[in-house]
């Protein structure tokens, strides 16, 4: 099937099998490997992307379901090919919010979605919101710190 979508702010038309998951389209067909697969039961959140501005699990969404919509991946957070980071990416860097980096793209996409809804989240709100994102390295301590700092930076950037 032919589908058209906006991907990281650019129009894309691709041919996909109906059985293709959005994450497979991104990783295999479009080589956007920043979106990861960490489980097969829709729980780890490594595959989070934004669909029409909301965080969703790209491992639990058909690629055809993205037809006509807008998808943003971690690669789209900062301008292509540039080292200028999104405030949330910068906050993760500044606050040591990542270790192995595997859960990081999902954490970032989740965090940016949260801050879009709640510009000044409390620690408890951040921890609750991250229910759908597993991390095995950090104990979440610095991730939570990063999200709060990233939220402040996003507020300042407005």
């Amino acid at each position: 099937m032919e589908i058209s979508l906006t991907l990281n702010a650019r129009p894309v038309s691709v041919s996909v099998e109906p059985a293709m998951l959005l994450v497979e389209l991104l990783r295999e067909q479009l080589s956007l490997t920043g979106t990861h697969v960490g489980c097969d039961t829709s729980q780890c959140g490594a595959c989070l992307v934004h669909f029409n501005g909301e965080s969703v699990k790209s491992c639990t969404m058909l690629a055809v379901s993205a037809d006509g919509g807008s998808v943003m991946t971690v690669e789209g957070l900062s301008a292509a090919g540039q080292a200028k980071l999104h405030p949330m990416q910068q906050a993760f860097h500044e606050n040591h919010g990542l270790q192995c980096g595997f859960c990081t793209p999902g954490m970032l996409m989740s965090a940016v979605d949260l801050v879009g809804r709640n510009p000044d989240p409390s620690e408890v709100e951040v921890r609750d919101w991250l229910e759908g994102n597993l991390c095995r390295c950090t104990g979440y301590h610095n991730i939570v710190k990063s999200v709060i700092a990233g939220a402040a930076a996003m507020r300042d950037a407005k």
Partner: protein
Amino acid sequence: MNMSKVVGIGASPKRKEDLRFVTGRGNYVADIKRPGMLFGAFLRSPHAHARLGAIDVTAAGAMPGVVAVYTGEDLKADNVGGLPVGWGIHGKDGNPMKEPPHPPIAHGKVRHVGDAVAFVVAETVEQARSAVEAIDVQYEILPAVVSVVEALQAGAPAVYDDIPDNLCCDWELGDAAAVEAAFIDAAHVASIELVNNRLIGNPMEPRAAIGEYDFATGQHTLWTTSQFPHVVRFLMGEFVLHIPQHKLRVVAPDVGGGFGVKQFHYAEEAVVTWAAAKLGLPVKWVCERSEGFVSDAHGRDHFTEADLALDESGKFLGLRVRTLANMGGYLSTFGPNIPTNLYAPLLSGVYRMPAIHCSVKVVFTNTVPVDAYRGAGRPEATFVLERLVDVAAIEMGIDKRAIRRRNMIPTEAYPYQTPVIVEYDSGDPMGCLDRAEKLADVEGFEQRRLESAHRGKYRGLGLSTYVEACGLAPSRLAGSLGARGGLYESATVRVHPTGAVTVLIGTHNHGQGHETTFAQIVSDRLGVPFEDIDIVCGDTAKVQFGMGTYGSRSLVVGGAALSKAADKVILKGRKIAAHQLEADLGDIVFDAGEFSVAGTDRKKKFTEIAGAAYVPFDYPLETLEPGLEEQSYYDPVNFTYPGGAHFAEVEIDPDTGTVTLERYTAVDDVGTIINPMIVEGQLQGGIAQGVGQALFEHGVYDESSGQLLSGSFMDYCMPRADNFPAIVVAPHSTTCTHTPMGVKGCGECGTIGSPAAVINAVVDALQPLGITHVDMPATPNRIWNIIRNSRAALAAE
């Protein structure tokens, strides 16, 4: 950008590796595509124990896109060897452990759910998975045994026909007679029986492997999610596939967490490498998470009985430990070493323990092989000792902190020889406890407990001290304990003509921040700007050799090799400077990035010397070689012994049995700290894993069918952000006396100290009910049952 600058030891520069990860530019094995790449999928046994009959692959082989279907017989016919074990231990009777073969794909029998039975290669993953379902296997299902206790019973199913008692090794350490004497003299004996729950490591990146073969050069390449690519090259090349080392390249690119799970040589690595050579095309396998649950090595799984003898004042006289350790269906790379050599030598803890005896029965069962998982043996030892100390304190009516202080090794008593092989070089357990007590606001606990009680909740405070042996390992000692190879580390410092530096190091960075920490060491030693230093690891074609990253060894052993290689660079630089400045070598000093003639203003910058090294127009070539690149192999003289004191504070809701971790405070002695930010991150992450063991995680097998009941994130409880409070970590360091920089390592501290701290807190909370022990994990259901039964018992009294 900032000006180029030296970033030294003790600073917290932000990590060099972050940029690629926060922008989605990491390069994990699953991200790699090779031209013409095929995809593999394994058929895995649905049975815990079965004899393999006919395997009909005809239908599968005829399916669309299928290129090949391989079984264990195909590997056997091609002379593919079994997966080797890196340590061979000996039993009490002096005999070596039983070491049955471990074929990459089963033949004869399958020994656990998930054991590989066949491998399909196809043009797409989907085709390979579909064909897996079409393979017809005749299984003669056999009774299975999954628990260590059951496996040792007479008449239990035998995992190996020729090992009817399932006993791999009956091992011991210590002085049994001295311990018996201590118990005779004891005023009090505290006893405990406990389970150290089976864990499944679950790094967030599932394992993956790609094999490739170039017939024109005879070169094999394996990309794998490994913590130690050189060791995989050696084990797989030498013992499994018989590929000469120079024709085998193993690459472990960005790896998404390891925690021990990725420090073994796995069957899948050999199978894809072998299949790629058979087919002449790259073959990729990416593990699905549910597949990982039944094929990644598991951790822990002990049953232990232990007794502590004390005098009337609460001083420890002797410790007796009897442990049954589950090995699963095969011996994994380090399997038998973990519950023996990495366990019993730590049973003295931070205490004066005059006599210790530990016997360990290492047992085969029909479960996934058990091997190292973060902490590996040391959390188990700490849990036994620190639980037992609490039990003794409760029974004898001594304060839990006081009984520990009474027995602690005072800092001035180091070096301290324990009765179980290891000699601690340095430490200050009392200082750690003092500091932790303040940070945890132990004084305010009673007030908080009353406040919880007012809301109908139980509140408990738990303490655990610990010591670990890390920095694996002094090869001489390791060899005497059964290691089949040395455990040194290597580093090359390559100074480029411009003075920039590339480090090639044999450890592997998969979250620990090595690219940053090691660059700090080089920056500090050579005065080279931090951003002018790159750290390269994980590729046997680039890095000379290496033992990899596990056992909190990277900084301790790899960092030491790096430091020594830097020393050699300085020496070589001084020779070049002596030539250039026309001075005696002995007069050349190196300081702050400059070589100078002592007592004069004649000097050369590091960059000038680097340039000169590669432009040797006027060199005395008989005495001075061109170039500035030095290498060091470092073999430590002793283990390092990080330690500390951890306080956990929990609240329990008696209505639901829910345990909430309210506060966690850790004070750790990790020796010299290179990058405090990274050390804190390691401690926080380690603590979360230990808390996971104590409260949430449990690999559960069905006793009769041998099925893994906790086989996905739906049933295996991974800790989440909302399970934790902010974690307080603080250092209280003493300097290691034998590592070049005084470092001790920090990767496992959190995981070692925390399970006992949390369970001690849970037991403390339930003390009004007379509870003295709670097994891990302290799940709501388990706690509710304990509370209900205790209340019923109290009511009956």
